[in-house]
C-alpha cells in the first residue's frame, strides 16, 4: 500500500486516490512503469507520486531529464514494445511540447499498423486555474486532445472516480490522457478498495434534476453542484451530468438528460471559443433540438491568457453565481 492510504478510513483525497490506483496497478502488472520529471526520488512536485520510487525502484519509476518531446516518444516506443507506461507531463501547458509524438505517432499507430501495434499508455497531467501560476502554467487544453481520433481523454471530478478511471486508463490498450485539475487534488471522499474500475466512456449523473441539465467535467462539476443548490432555492431543479471522459463521449447520457429537462448549460474551465462546451452544445442542439425549451447555453473561461494577478485570475474561473445567472437567463429571468 502506498504510504498515504494505510488508514482503514477510506476517506482519501483525489490525489491520494490516483496514487493508490497507480500503486495497485504497478503492483499487479509488471509492465506498468512510471516515467517523468521529478516523479522518482522527489515523489512528484505535488507529492503525487510519493512512495512509488521506494516501492518499485529505479527500473519502474524513472526520473527523466527535462526533455518532454523525447520522454513522451520513448514512452510510445516502450508501449509499442509491450510495456504500459504512465508518463507524467508536469503541467498541461507543456502538452504543447509533446503534441507531435502524441498526435502524429501515439494516436495513429494502431490505425496505421492495422492493429499490429497497440500504444497502451497513460499521459497524466495537471491542469486548471487557481494557484496564481500565470499564463504558461494554467491552461486546460483538453479540447485539443478530444479532437484527435485515437486518443482517449479522461477528466475525473472526484476521488473515487479518479481511482476507478485511472485504473481503467492503465488497463486500456490506447493512449489515454488523464487530466487532473490541481484544484481538485485535495477533495476527499470515501474511495472503494481495490477492484474499482470505471469504464472509460461513461458519463454519470451526479445530481438528478428535472428542469435544466448542467454538463461539466472535473472541477466544474463541483461548481455545477453548488449552483444546483442555489437554483433549488429558486425552485429550479438542476441535473448535473459529469461527462468524466471526453473521448469516448457518452452521447447517450448527454442526450437523455436534456430530453428530460429541456434545458442545457455546458460548463467548462477551458477557454470558451472552439473549446469543449462548443462540442457538447452542438451535439445537444443537433440531437435534442425538439426537446429544447431554450437555447443551449455555454459558460467557460473567457478567451484570455490566464493572468497571474490574483484579482484577475479568479475572473477566469466560471463560478456558481454565473451558472445561476445563465440558467436564469434561460427562463427569461426568474425574478
Amino acid at each position: 500500500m502506498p504510504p498515504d492510504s494505510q488508514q482503514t478510513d477510506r476517506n482519501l483525497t483525489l490525489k491520494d486516490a490516483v496514487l493508490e490506483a497507480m500503486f495497485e496497478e504497478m503492483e499487479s502488472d509488471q509492465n506498468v512503469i512510471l516515467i517523468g520529471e521529478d516523479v522518482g526520488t522527489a515523489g512528484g512536485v505535488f507529492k503525487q507520486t510519493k512512495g512509488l520510487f521506494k516501492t518499485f525502484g529505479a527500473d519502474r519509476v524513472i526520473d527523466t531529464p527535462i526533455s518532454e518531446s523525447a520522454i513522451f516518444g520513448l514512452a510510445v516506443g516502450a508501449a509499442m514494445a509491450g510495456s504500459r507506461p504512465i508518463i507524467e507531463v508536469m503541467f498541461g501547458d507543456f502538452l504543447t511540447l509533446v503534441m507531435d509524438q502524441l498526435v502524429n505517432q501515439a494516436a495513429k499507430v494502431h490505425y496505421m499498423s492495422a492493429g499490429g501495434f497497440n500504444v497502451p499508455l497513460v499521459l497524466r497531467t495537471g491542469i486548471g486555474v487557481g494557484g496564481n501560476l500565470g499564463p504558461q502554467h494554467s491552461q486546460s487544453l483538453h479540447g485539443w486532445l478530444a479532437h484527435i481520433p485515437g486518443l482517449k481523454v479522461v477528466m475525473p471530478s472526484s476521488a473515487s472516480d479518479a481511482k476507478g478511471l485511472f485504473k481503467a486508463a492503465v488497463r486500456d490498450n490506447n493512449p489515454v490522457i488523464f487530466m487532473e485539475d490541481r484544484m481538485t487534488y485535495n477533495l476527499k471522499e470515501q474511495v472503494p478498495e481495490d477492484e474499482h474500475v470505471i469504464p472509460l466512456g461513461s458519463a454519470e449523473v451526479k445530481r438528478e434534476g428535472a428542469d435544466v441539465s448542467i454538463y461539466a467535467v472535473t472541477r466544474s462539476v463541483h461548481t455545477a453542484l453548488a449552483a444546483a443548490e442555489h437554483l433549488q432555492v429558486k425552485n429550479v431543479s438542476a441535473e448535473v451530468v459529469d461527462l468524466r471522459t471526453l473521448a469516448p463521449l457518452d452521447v447517450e447520457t448527454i442526450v437523455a438528460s436534456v430530453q428530460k429537462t429541456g434545458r442545457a448549460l455546458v460548463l467548462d474551465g477551458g477557454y470558451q471559443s472552439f473549446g469543449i462546451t462548443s462540442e457538447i452544445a452542438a451535439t445537444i442542439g443537433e440531437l435534442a433540438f425538439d426537446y429544447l425549451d431554450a437555447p443551449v447555453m455555454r459558460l467557460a473561461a473567457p478567451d484570455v491568457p490566464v493572468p497571474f494577478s490574483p484579482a484577475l485570475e479568479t475572473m477566469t474561473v466560471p463560478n456558481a453565481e454565473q451558472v445561476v445567472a445563465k440558467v436564469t437567463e434561460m427562463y427569461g429571468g426568474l425574478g
Partner: protein
Amino acid sequence: MLTKDKLLELYRGMVTIRAFEEEVRKMHNAGLAPGLVHLYSGQEAVAVGTCTALNSDDYIASHHRGHGHCIAKGSELDRLFAEIIGRRSGYGMGRGGSMHIYDPATFNLGTNGIVGGSVPLATGAALLAKLRGTGQVAVSFFGDGVLNQGILFESLNMAALWSLPVVFICENNGYGEFTEIDDVTAGRPYAKRGEAFDIPSEKTDGMDVLAVHETVSKAVTRARNGDGPSFLIFDTYRYSGHHVGDKQEYKDDEERELWLSRDPIPKLSEMLVAEKKIKQAALDELDAEIKATVIVAANQAKKMPEPDADDLTRHIYAA
C-alpha cells in the same frame, strides 16, 4: 571474413531492394502508388549491412525513405507493395502507405512521415529491452535532416544516460529535400553530435555494405553487452532524388556519376567474383531470380482488393 552464405545474403538483400524500388517507381508512374514516394535506391548498403547484423527480434524504427529497411528486416514483399499501392492486404490495410509501414512480426516500429519522429520510438523500445533484460537491441534509422531536430539530441542524452541498447544510424545522403545538408548544418564532423553525449560515434562509407555490416556489428555487440548506444553516420546517396518525380535540377551530373561509380551492388558483386566466391553467371541467375520474385510479389499486390468502406473506421481504438 564473412561466410559465403552471409555475403550472398547481403547481395540478395541489396538486389531485392533495388528491384523492389524499380517496381515502385513504375507503380508510381502508372498512377498506382500516388502521394509521396521516397525511393531507397542507392542506400541499400546501409539497410542491408545493418539488418544482417541484427537478430530477428531486434527492433528497428525507420523513416520516410523506409522501404529498404522493411525489406532488409524481413517483411513480405507482396504486403509491402500492397501497402504502397493502398491495398487491403498491406501492412496497414493500405491506410498508411509508403511512409507508414509497421510490421510487428519483424519488430519494425514503422516507417515514419515525421522527420525525426521515429528516433525516440527506437530509443523507447531499447529502454524496455534494458529494463526487462531481454538482450534485444534497437536500431534507429534516420536521415541527415534529423541531425538538426531537437528530439534527436534529447534521445541521445537519455540513451547515453541509461546506457540503452540502441544504435543510432544516420543515413547521410547529402540532402534534405532540395537543400544540401552541409548548407544547413553546423559543426564538423557531424559525429561530434554523438560525442557530446560520450556516445561512441563514427562515420563510415555507406556505399560499402561490408563496412556497414562490420561497423554496425560492433555497435550491436556493444549494445547487447550492456555498453550502451552508438552513433553511426553512413555517407550515401539517393539516386532518385527526394521523391519519385524529383527532377533533381539541384544536382550536377558529376556528382551523380561519382556516386553511381560507388554503387554498393557492383562493388560487392565484383568482389565476390574477384575473390572467386561465386561466378558472374551464377550472380546473373540470382539477379534474374530475385527480379522475378519481386515482380511476382508486385503482381500479387496489384491483384489485391482495396480496403472497403468499413475499414475507414476500423482500428481507431484498440480493444
